[in-house]
């Protein structure tokens, strides 16, 4: 898995609540059995003028020259709600997004981010809006800095915002851990648990074919 330690980048404000994963990557843009080839479909419904076509909507934030190369999204509460499709995260990542700062995230989406080296940062609504205001005059110069070790976001004016993240997800991101490998270190515990559980709840343990 990709590591996330620190990052400095252009931040694009998409300040609306409940940005759902259908908006991040519409069903019609998930065309292959692959984690790749999804960046073009990112925010397709908002980013392009007509469905299926690729004419950019000049009003959409990521299409504005000021926000070219954006790698951070600032958004409203409940970002990534809705469908569990991990394609939303793969699309963001392929586009070049490294972190999203919002007052809250869809739970499945936040997990999907961490499993793919993307950092979901929870900051209060006022802080997100203040960050958006601090970048908007010249987003290419007024970059945002994120330090996951210190758990801090620094705005272009030097204002520092502390954020919380659970230790588990933080370690996974800092070290780029192979999560399955990490869990398999507990294989003896799992085996012992399942052996005991099989006696307590034998009906759970189906044999092949029912």
């Amino acid at each position: 898995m990709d590591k996330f330690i620190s990052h400095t980048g252009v931040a694009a404000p998409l300040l609306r609540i409940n940005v759902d994963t259908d908006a991040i990557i519409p069903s019609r843009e998930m065309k292959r059995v692959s984690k790749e080839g999804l960046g073009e479909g990112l925010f397709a419904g908002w980013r392009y003028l007509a469905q299926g076509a690729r004419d950019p909507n000049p009003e959409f934030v990521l299409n504005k020259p000021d926000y070219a190369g954006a790698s951070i999204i600032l958004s409203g509460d409940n970002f990534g709600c809705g469908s569990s499709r991990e394609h939303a995260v793969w699309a963001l990542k392929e586009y070049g997004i490294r972190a999203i700062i919002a007052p809250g995230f869809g739970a499945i989406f936040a997990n999907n981010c961490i499993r793919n080296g993307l950092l979901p940062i929870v900051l209060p609504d006022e802080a997100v809006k203040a960050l958006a205001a601090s970048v908007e005059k010249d987003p290419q110069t007024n970059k945002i800095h994120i330090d996951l070790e210190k758990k801090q976001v620094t705005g272009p004016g030097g204002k520092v915002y502390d954020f919380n993240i659970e230790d588990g997800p933080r370690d996974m991101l800092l070290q780029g851990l192979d999560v399955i490998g990490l869990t398999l270190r507990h294989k003896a515990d799992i085996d012992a648990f399942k052996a005991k559980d099989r006696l307590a709840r034998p009906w759970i343990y189906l044999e092949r074919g029912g």
Partner: protein
Amino acid sequence: MAQTLFEKMWNIHRVTALEDGADLIAIDRVFLHERTGSIALKSLEAEGRALRNPALVFCTMDHIVDTFPGRTDETLMPSGKDFIQSTRASARRAGITLFDLGDARQGIVHVVSPEQGIALPGATIVCPDSHTCTQGALGALAWGIGSTEAEHAMVTGTLRVNRPKTMRVVFDGALLPGVTAKDMILHLIGAYTAAGGGGYAVEFAGAAVAALPMEARFTLCNMAVEFSAFSGMVAVDDTTIDYVKGRPYAPKGPLWDKAVAQWRTLHSDEGAVFDKEIVIEAGDIKPTVTWGTSPGHAVAIDGKVPDPSLVRDDNLRAAMERALAYMDVTPGQHLTALKIDAAFIGSCTNARLSDLRAAAALLKGRRVAQGVKAICVPGSTQVKLAAEAEGLDKVFTAAGFEWRESGCSMCFFAGGEHMGFQERVISTTNRNFESRQGPETRTHLASPLVVAASAVTGAITDPRDLMRGHDG
């Protein structure tokens, strides 16, 4: 000490506490479908990782398949067959059980899993699909995950989970005639917002929930994710146990008795403490419809489109203003005045046999209004066959509904099929997001009764008006 149902489930499944604060939770069942499961299986193959126990992993075809009669692997979306064929090949190699096209057990994952007795009371069930919470209605702990976490569950038999907080939503009293589980959940989300359940495992309780038949409980729990909850659950009772008995993968003989004895303990103890509690009087709930682009944009059917200028929260107000423009509705407008272009009965929310019966009872002897496209997609092939055995298909088709094969269908572009540009659709599905059902399509979520009544009149309609008409 008195425990909540959730705490009991957590304790039964906790393998160990991890060094990072999460718990390692044993997973009893993994269900996959061809959109997100295909990629998980393919990824495991690429990494050379084996499944811990393929007998506990199931897969169905629902998200990409089309629903036209006589369907094949081909879909309207040219690459659709790649998902179907990739899933089929990977499932065979992994040794998991697949409910393929043409299999009488095929259907929408959250309909099929309980129907086959794969989801059981007291089980942990995960699927790379957000509506997995549906299956919590059995007194199970069921939640949606991503594809990468599905890989983790298949390889290790566990997931690393930070324990959510607990919430109980109590529906006291009794529902009025014409009011359904769909109206209960829309009412809840309308009152407490689409983010209201964030961080909580929700237990639905109270007299009105206990009175719900099993299929209605699935509808209630299905939209727990629309409330942003980790999961939704209902305690085990006779209704649960009667439902599970005799299902293909349910325990039999002495194992059944042993299982039932454990399942009978799966309820919150008297005096158990929840982190949050909400109480709703069921008798106050009316048929409920959404007017906007979030499931939280829900109002009683005899209500009006709300006025954002009365809302103090800036973010909610901005979202409402955006939704008003998208939906082409105005504050103060009566919902029942809205003309519709299409009516859709389907999805993991509301396409079980009881849903189709309720809609058919209203449609019998009536016709869909001129110019309204009406489609019914049974939740599973079993539901379709059972409906046909009692002649419901004839009622739907005589009324002017299309009668389809089972799949997710137009809940979202499944098979590449969708509603028309800016069409207004009354739908039994779960999400009214922008462009979810088609390009700029305007979706109004509602119960099967509301959808059937609206299909008949051509405008959003309170089903109780037509039900009264039938009575006399």
